[in-house]
Every structure is written in structure tokens, then in C-alpha cells.
């Protein structure tokens, strides 16, 4: 059973009189533990796809099965629970809460999930160690470098031990060197079993993934796993 199964997904935005088909007739299956790069030109529907996979958005039609369960019909609070337990997000612009320290930012998902404080403290301490942030625990985001911020964000995304990590251009705001470090970090997490889905503009980064998807106008233009089968 695939971790993610999309079939017949449509996502239409209404802009004035015209309809924008951000996703059209999308069928896609992603296996647990896979490492997938989503590429394609700007406006091709990459972010829309990722938001849908992360249950931040609902399709206009089609079904989305996550771990065998149809999640499109879940209520808002049930979806929130799935996000909390199964999905980790990494954003291009980090999205750290400016008034909270690194440790507090990392602990946010556990606080929202209602985990006991002792469990939280233990996990945060371990995460700070794993991500090389021990000495940054009490720093606020504006006291951190870009690479450190993204590491805090990744620590936060993985603190609930999700099944999948969704990263929308995670290196977009970082220089080459720091970006490579962040990608390396994500790959290490993938190696430990987390399904990794990365949206990227960069063909070099995309090439490192096990599977490449190329979007165009809301369609899946190229799927490396399928072309491999064809070959």
C-alpha cells in the first residue's frame, strides 16, 4: 500500500471570470520512505500540490488516500489531527514565531498536540542536539542565521515524528552552501525512514531525489519512475 494515493485530483481557483486549473486530473502514488522532488516552472501547481498533500487545502474533486484512509472527507479538526501526527512542513521563508525562542518554536507542535511538558522537554533537548542547535536554544529567530533558522524549522517539522516531510523550496532563501547543508539534513531524515517530498526550482537538487516529478500547467508532465518503467 502506497503512503499517498491521489486519483483524479482537480483544484480550480476562480479569478474574476476565469478559472485557473492549478491541478488537473492528477493521479499519483508515493511509497512510504520515498524521496520525491517536485519540479516545474513557476505557476505550474507545485505549491498547490504540496498544500493538498499537507491537508492545508482541499481538492475540488478527486480523492486523496493517506496511509490507505480517504482524508478528503475528514472534518477540519480531524484533518488538523492528521497534520499534527503525520505531516511535517518546511517552508521557504522558515515561518518561525518571532517572539518565541528556538526551543519554544521546536516545541510548538507538541504543545498544540497536548503532549506532557516533560516529554516535550526531552524531545526538544534531543532535537537541539541532533540539529547542532544546543547553544541556540534560547535565541530568538532574529538572533539566528538563515541556516540555523531552517534547522530550527526542520527540527520543528520532525519533532512529532511524522510519516512525511513536505518542503516547499526549503533552500530558496539560503545561499548555496547552507542550502546544501539543509538538503543533506533532510536526506539524512529520509534515510531514517521519513517520506520526503521537496519542491524545488533547482535541477541539481531535484536530481538528488530518488524520484522526480515535473509539473506543467497543473498536469504531471514527467514522472521519473514511470519513464524508468517505460525504458
Amino acid at each position, binding site marked *: 500500500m502506497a503512503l499517498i494515493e491521489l486519483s483524479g485530483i482537480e483544484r480550480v481557483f476562480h479569478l474574476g471570470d476565469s478559472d485557473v486549473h492549478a491541478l488537473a486530473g492528477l493521479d499519483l502514488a508515493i511509497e512510504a520512505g520515498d524521496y520525491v522532488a517536485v519540479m516545474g516552472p513557476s505557476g505550474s501547481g507545485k505549491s498547490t500540490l504540496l*498544500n493538498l498533500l*499537507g491537508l*492545508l*487545502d482541499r481538492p475540488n474533486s478527486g480523492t486523496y488516500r493517506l496511509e490507505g484512509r480517504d482524508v478528503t472527507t475528514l472534518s*477540519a*479538526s480531524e484533518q*488538523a*489531527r492528521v*497534520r*499534527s*501526527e503525520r505531516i511535517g*512542513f518546511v*517552508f521557504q*521563508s522558515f*515561518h518561525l*514565531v*518571532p*517572539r*518565541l525562542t528556538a526551543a*519554544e518554536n521546536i516545541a*510548538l*507542535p507538541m*504543545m*498544540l*498536540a*497536548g503532549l506532557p511538558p516533560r516529554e516535550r522537554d526531552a524531545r526538544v533537548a534531543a532535537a537541539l542536539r541532533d540539529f547542532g542547535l544546543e547553544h541556540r536554544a534560547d535565541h530568538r529567530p532574529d538572533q539566528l542565521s538563515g541556516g540555523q533558522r531552517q534547522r530550527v524549522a526542520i527540527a*520543528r517539522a520532525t519533532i*512529532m515524528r511524522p510519516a512525511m516531510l513536505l518542503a516547499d523550496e526549503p533552500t530558496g532563501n539560503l545561499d548555496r552552501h547552507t542550502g546544501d547543508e539543509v538538503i543533506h539534513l533532510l536526506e539524512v531524515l529520509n534515510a531514517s525512514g521519513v517520506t520526503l517530498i521537496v519542491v524545488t526550482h533547482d535541477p541539481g537538487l531535484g536530481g538528488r531525489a530518488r524520484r522526480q516529478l515535473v509539473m506543467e500547467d497543473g498536469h504531471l508532465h514527467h514522472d521519473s519512475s514511470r519513464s524508468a518503467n517505460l525504458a
Partner: protein
Amino acid sequence: MKLTDTVRFARSAATGYPLRTALSVLAMAIGVAAVVVLTALGDGARRYVVGQFSSLGTNLVIVLPGRSGTGGFNPANAITSTPRDLTISDAAALRRAPSVKRLAPLAVGTSEISFGGHVREGMVAGSTSQMLEVRNFTLAQGQFLPDDDWNRGAPVAVIGAKIREEVFGTQEAVGQLARVGDRRVRIVGVLASTGTGLGMNTDELVIVPVALAQALFNSNTLFRILVEARSREAIPAAKNEVLEILKTRHGGEEDVTVITQDAVLATFDRLLGALTLAVGGIAAISLAVAGILVMNVMLVAVAQRTNEIGLLKALGATDRDIRQAFLAEAAMLSTFGALAGYVLGEIGAFLVRQFFPVFPAQPPNWAIFAGIGTALVTGLVFGVMPARRAARLDPVEALMKH
């Protein structure tokens, strides 16, 4: 999300934006402080007046000559012209009334009192020995008027503290012969100082037997008859008996007015109580204004933190989590505002008491509860709309906003 975490998160949000937090706390505080101070003033005025009236004596029934207009228009009274005066015999007759414990006739006028070259104009009250108890006077020295024939008018006087000081200076007053008008009187007692109050200021009073006063003023009428009923319950009966006796004595005509201290007190009590309520209500309007301010501040907070709300949703927050976090923040602002306002109000009332010690400016408990309660409720009610708006934000759009 656990409640303690919701509260802690709301607190970090409130302290994270100190200016807008301070602004709404201040608005709430001013509203509550206004309620506390204004009701303290209103209730202080009420208690001051009530206290002053009570110090006049207990269970008092006061008889005035003439028919007051409050009894309604009576054609019979309109035709019969001048009402009869109150006399010493009228007062003496009231001693028969079973509900009357004691009474004192009162004739007043002004006259000069002199001793050893010191001359002073003063208010002269003619009365009898029971005046002491009826009016709750306290003697500093000597004794009060002797209990003898009301028509005899022994040449004695009891003086107020200020008269004593100004006319006798450092000399002993009791036992001295002084002059009141054209009469020589012996000072038998000095009243304890009471300071200023409603009605007569006893510190500047010269009290002589009623017959002597009437002789001084060359009149045989009384200004008032002060009657003390046997008990609070006996006041209405005393009033009726007094009216009945005087009506009989005045040829069947009801030509006197009887007022009870109770009724006057109750009127003042009600009047000033209503005033306090009105003033407190007006102050409470400022709380509604503060509530609207809290709402706007929270709406600004939602707009400022749209991004954060999107993030929280992505991290697994339910709509309920978001709603409660913002509601908790609004509640926090109004709670701190209310408490700060209460403290400010108490300080204000304390300062009023410091500067005007006679004025018991103390906020009534109901006003404190109403003020703080209104603040909390308005804060919450006006916090609901922003909190719902926050919870309803679309996470994708919220995350995209900068």
C-alpha cells in the same frame, strides 16, 4: 492544546506586543477606575449625609409650626388663614403621648454673649434638660440645663466649645457669670466639640432654658419641638399621637407639620443611592468603549499575526485551539485592565479620604463587582469576534501573507 499552554501562549503573545497590550489594559483600567472612584464619591456622599442626619439624634420626630405643602391641597386649610404658633404648653402636652420617650422644645435666635470685655454674636437655643439626650449632645465640662419648670427660665447657660474658647479664652468658663443679651446668666456646662455638620453647629451655640430664650427674643413661640420616639417601630405612632394632640389643642385644625428623621433619611438615602448608581452607570459606559478598543486591538493582532495563525494550523492547531488562544489573550487584557483599574480606583478613593477626612469615599462592594465584572464580560464578548475571525482563516492564504 492544554489550557495552561493556551494561557501561556496567549501571555507570550500579549507581552510580545507591549504597546497594543498596554493600550488596551490602560483603557480597561481607566474604565474600572472611573467606576470605582465615582461610586466611591457617590456612596461617600450618601454615607456622609446619612451619618450627619443620624448624629442629630435617634428616632427623632420633628414638629414644625405651619402646614407644609406636601400634605396635598386641602381647601379647608386654604381658607383658614394664619396657622397657630407652637408654644411651650403645646410641647408640655406632648409628654402625655405614650409613644414619646422624651422631648425638647426649641426656640432659636441670635444674641450677644459677653464676658470680661469679650463680646461675641452667637446662636441662642432655648430648650429644656432633655435636649441633651434627644440631640445626643456630649458635655465636655459641667452639666446641662436643670430639669425644672419649663416656664421658669433659670438664668443659666450651656455653651459650645468655640464660644467658650473665644469668650473665655484660657479662663475656666463653668461657674462664671456672663451676659447673654440683657440677661446675666451662669455658665453651667460646655458642650464637647463636634466640628461642622448638618444643621446647627453646636460649637457656636449658647443653650439657655426655653423660657429665658423667649424672654430674650420677646416672643412666646417655638421654632421646633424635637420628639424622641420610644423605638424605631414607635416612630409612626409617635407621629400620629403628636399630630392628634396638637390638632385637639389647636381647635381641631391640623396646622403643624411633623417630619420623621426616618423619612428624611430614607429620602436622602434613596436619592444619593440613585445618584451613585447613575454615576457608576455612566462610568460603565467607558467600559463598553474599552471593550470596543480591546476588540480593535485584537483585530489588529489577528491581522498582524495572520502568518502565525497559518503556521499554527499547518503544525496541527485546530480552529478551536486558535479561537481559544485569541480569546484567552482578550480575557487576559481585560483581566489585567480590570485589576489595574481596581487598584487605581482604590488609590483614588484613598487619596480623596486623605484630603477630605470627613468624607467616607469608599467604593461600595456592588460597584467593585459590577465594574470588574463588566470589564471581564465586555473583554470576552468583544474578544469573540476577532478570535472567530482568526480561527476561520484559510491556512494557505494565511501562510502566504506577509
